[in-house]
């Protein structure tokens, strides 16, 4: 199974009031395999993104942000990206906080193959409703 990669500065940013995961706008970013982000990166300006021409909105809707019995869980609505024309090739996708002043990074995933979308193609990020994107114990 492909790995969930947490950006390490995220935990400090979370502890120091950079994120409000219950209300901030989380957004997806895409990168090529030649520009893989590293776990020590903190903000979006450090990431080399692809051009998003011909791609639908990358904004993610938060479903729930709540704790049960002391375990916090962030659950997100599935995001469907749709191409209206040729889209630049990508392989890695990640999530950042678009509300935070410097767009702090949260996590990323490796699709494992280059994805080249043509008109009508879709790329869905299906977040688990039971596990959530992340949990804090």
């Amino acid at each position: 199974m492909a790995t969930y990669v947490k950006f390490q500065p995220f935990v400090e940013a979370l502890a120091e009031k950079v994120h409000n995961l219950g209300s901030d706008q989380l957004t997806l970013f895409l990168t090529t395999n030649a520009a893989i982000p590293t776990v020590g990166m903190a903000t979006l300006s450090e990431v080399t993104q692809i051009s998003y021409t011909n791609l639908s909105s990358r904004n993610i809707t938060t479903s729930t942000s709540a704790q049960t019995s002391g375990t916090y869980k962030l659950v997100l609505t599935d995001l469907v990206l749709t191409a209206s024309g040729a889209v630049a090739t990508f392989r890695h996708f990640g999530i950042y906080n678009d509300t935070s002043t410097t767009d702090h990074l949260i996590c990323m995933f490796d699709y494992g193959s280059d994805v080249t979308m043509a008109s009508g193609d879709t790329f869905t990020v299906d977040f688990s409703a039971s596990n959530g994107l992340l949990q804090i114990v």
Partner: protein
Amino acid sequence: MTRYILTQEHGDEKTRVTSRFTTTDREKAERMASSNPRIELTTEEEPDDPSN
């Protein structure tokens, strides 16, 4: 029309994300699936557009 769906799971017991790429380009779908054993390739038939 046949739609090719390439599915892959990411994460662990605490975090689970499934990514799903769909295309009507069979050659592209088969090339991607063969290059990555973690990707599962399935197909789905879409009804033809009656307006055509």
